[in-house]
């Protein structure tokens, strides 16, 4: 078995003496789809930010393909790690121009775009079915189309690892399923933070459950989505059944005190 693609060991991050992330350790293998789950404020976004080098951890080590990502320069790191951020509030550029931003780490200061680069952008747009909206303004798109645009940008960025911060936020259920199917079909190594535990169960190979900055559990959906664990971490009443399609847990939440 080869070395894992991403190794996170003993990662801690503190702001103003408050520990946001505590002793986070996990590995990600090539081609895996990892879901980061946990209640609000559990540290999902903070963890992802340390992985894509937006915030520097207080201690601990993150290596990608055996290289410490904090030793790389910004452009090298961006060539290795592509990110689909939470959709920005406003981005007054055309879809084509937003997708083209994915070329940024690959280009030198005076280097013009080549025909190959533009071909890459067109292919990415085809992959997310947005060719017909290429000249539309990003701000005018629906939430699902904006997310697909940012995924196309990440495709153009060509990282070894794709990080997505709550990609299904604000999308209705059809677009949530559509989006994650598209991502899954890319065959990339993916780390995504997810709110919906049933979606996480259906799409992820492994889950990492965070609470108050600690990893509470990690493993396959069957190992992590245990009723006792989920009800304790999320403070809800929950039972599970096996989903008929994918044979992984399906969570049923109880909304009222049972009689």
């Amino acid at each position: 078995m080869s070395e894992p693609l991403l190794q996170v060991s003993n990662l801690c991050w503190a702001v103003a003496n408050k520990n946001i992330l505590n002793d986070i350790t996990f590995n990600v293998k090539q081609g895996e789809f990892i879901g980061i789950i946990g209640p609000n404020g559990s540290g999902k976004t903070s963890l992802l930010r340390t992985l894509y080098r937006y915030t520097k951890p207080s201690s601990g080590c993150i290596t990608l393909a055996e290289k410490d990502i904090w030793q790389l320069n910004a452009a090298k790191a961006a060539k290795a790690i592509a990110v689909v951020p939470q959709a920005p509030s406003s981005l007054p550029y055309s879809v084509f121009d937003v997708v083209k931003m994915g070329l940024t780490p690959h280009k030198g200061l005076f280097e013009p775009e080549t025909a190959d680069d533009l071909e890459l952008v067109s292919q990415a747009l085809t992959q997310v079915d947005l060719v017909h909206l290429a000249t539309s303004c990003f701000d005018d798109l629906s939430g699902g189309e904006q997310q697909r645009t940012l995924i196309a940008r990440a495709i153009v960025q060509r990282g070894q690892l794709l990080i997505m911060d709550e990609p299904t936020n604000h999308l209705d259920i059809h677009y949530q399923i559509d989006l994650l199917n598209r991502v899954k079909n890319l065959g990339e190594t993916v780390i995504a933070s997810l709110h919906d535990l049933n979606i996480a169960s259906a799409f992820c190979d492994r889950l990492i459950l965070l609470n108050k900055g600690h990893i509470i559990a990690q493993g396959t959906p069957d190992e992590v989505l245990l009723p006792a664990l989920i009800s304790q971490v999320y403070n809800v009443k929950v039972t599970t059944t096996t989903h008929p399609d994918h044979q992984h847990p399906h969570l049923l939440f109880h909304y009222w005190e049972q009689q």
Partner: protein
Amino acid sequence: MKSQLFIIPGLMLTLLVSALIALSHGAISISLNDVFSALLSPFFEQQLNPIYQQIVLELRLPRIILAFLAGAGLAVSGAILQLVTRNPLADPYLFGISAGASFGAVMMLTILNHISMILLPAAAFVGGLLSVFMVVSIAGRSAYNQVERMLLAGVATSFMFSAASSAMLYNSDPQAAASILFWTLGSFAQAQWDTLLAPAIIICSSIVVFFAFSRHVVAISSGDESATTLGVNVSRVRLSMLIISSLICSVIVASAGGIAFVGLLIPHAIRLIFGQHQLNNYFLVALTGGLFMIYIDLLARTLIENQEIPLGIITSAIGSVFFLFILKQRTQRNH
């Protein structure tokens, strides 16, 4: 998309025509025929009144070129600063540059009691850079909240230099105060061929640097976090862009005084006319700014007979009305 191909050639043609109009109008009107003869006189023998030749070649042409350079430089640095701070109000003067430059000029006029055509611009240039140095050192290298720190440091620096300038002016003779007032309102009247070199070199090379960093600037305009994930060193690029913009503005303030509102106005006009995505087409921004300034200067020279109106008065008057107009349109669209 296709119509955009014609924008730049169209603007260049307009620029050429505008330059000819500006050359022929002024305190004395010179016919286009004579303007052409004057322009060709260094190369071919021409039959022309030598005074006309003098006016066109030695007075109006350098003046028009300086106006173009100043407009282009202010517009481009305004556009860059609006993009990297994601603040539609960002303008080089917001970062204390004109206050610093005025401070340098006032120092020269009151303390040394010296009005020199070489020393005054130099003092203004140094004053402008001093204020930027202060803003940059306060803003620091961390990207977190950097924009807020830059803006607040700029405002504070402006007030500090203004206070120092006012104190010095208050204690000086009225004549110095009057010449400082005229200088701070801006004028291209001092333009000469040999004073064009420094602004031309600084502005043109800065635009080349802006083009080199164009992808980075666009990435930053989409958000600090997003730009970081695209491999952009956000805080370093933003500070570099501020320093280069300040260099442009210091050299313009030094050679033509403080010309308000242009750095703010032109980027907004570009947004309105051509769309936000053209804001990082620095060639287009520079051409538009330069064109605008040529006409402002023409107005300054011709609006009142035998008298020049300071540029700052015209740009501020047009700028403020334009902004109220935009604001009104926006509020109407949102309700």
